[in-house]
């Protein structure tokens, strides 16, 4: 992702970064690296027992990708000042996570070039009989078809706001 250029961006402009697919092994690594070792993220049998059907990704794992987008956009000379999100939907193994931001304000503060954004994360999940059986999908979900494949789309896995200092 290119570093944001304060002088050329405008309110309403969007940024986007796609991450994934989420891998089961990645969730195991995340559990160890983050210290969040709740087995509902790593052990299918325990996630099933908890009524989840299968493991779910850590909320902060999903959020990390939004921060990744912001940090790359801020670049080495900029920084993420603040991120404030709600976790609205569950992430699953095999999900593609699409992180997005929309500029709501640009301003200078203490000589720094600041940008406020609305941020959110969408997910795209390939529909398979196995996932249907495990209860990945629920009534009211939204689907798209690409070629022979059907995907469930969640528009707001994560939603919130952020502030970034650009170089």
């Amino acid at each position, binding site marked *: 992702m290119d570093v944001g250029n304060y002088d050329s961006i405008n309110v309403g402009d969007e940024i986007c970064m796609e*991450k994934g697919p989420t891998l089961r092994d*990645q969730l195991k*690594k*995340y559990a*160890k*690296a*983050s*210290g*969040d070792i709740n087995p509902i993220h790593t052990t299918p049998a325990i996630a099933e027992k*908890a009524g989840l059907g299968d493991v779910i990704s850590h*909320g*902060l*794992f999903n*959020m*990390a*990708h939004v*921060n*990744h987008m*912001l*940090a*790359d956009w801020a670049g*080495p000379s900029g*920084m*993420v*000042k*603040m*991120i*404030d*999100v*709600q*976790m609205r939907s569950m992430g699953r193994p095999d999900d593609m996570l699409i992180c997005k931001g929309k500029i709501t304000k640009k301003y200078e503060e203490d000589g720094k070039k600041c940008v406020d954004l609305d941020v959110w994360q969408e997910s795209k999940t390939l529909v398979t009989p196995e996932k249907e059986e495990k209860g990945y999908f629920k009534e009211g979900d939204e689907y798209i078809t690409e070629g022979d494949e059907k995907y469930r789309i969640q528009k707001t896995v994560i939603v919130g706001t952020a502030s970034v200092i650009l170089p």
Partner: protein
Amino acid sequence: MGEDEEIEESRAKYKEFIGMQVKGGRYKVMQKKITAYCEAVNHNDPRYVDENIEGGPVAPPEFAAAYAISGLTSLATVQGLIKNFSKLLHTGQKYEYFEPVRPGDVLQSDSEIMDVYEKNKMLWIILRSTFVNQDGKKATVAEFTAGIRPGGF
């Protein structure tokens, strides 16, 4: 009774917890922890993982999850608030960043329960943790929001 009044009434029920200081912790930032975290979230930027980069590496902003988990686990030390942690849903997270976090830093945290109330049959808890580095500078503030499902409180 309206929803706002119900929330306010439930705050009175939990007033002993609101404003409570929760046991803090100490976290030593190590490059291997940053590298493992970056690998897990596939954010292997040299500015985070290259130990020889000019000026030295820093932690990516999302690494706050690794040092701020102490705030969440400290809730377990609060008697009489959460009875069953398996009913806890992590519903919101805020991070404010003030100073870069680098390998070798030692972060001392203090946590405070900012709010507790019932809404939609769930118990909502907001916990704020402030992380100060070895130079006494505020590095990060993390605000964690949890919803506890019925049966968990």
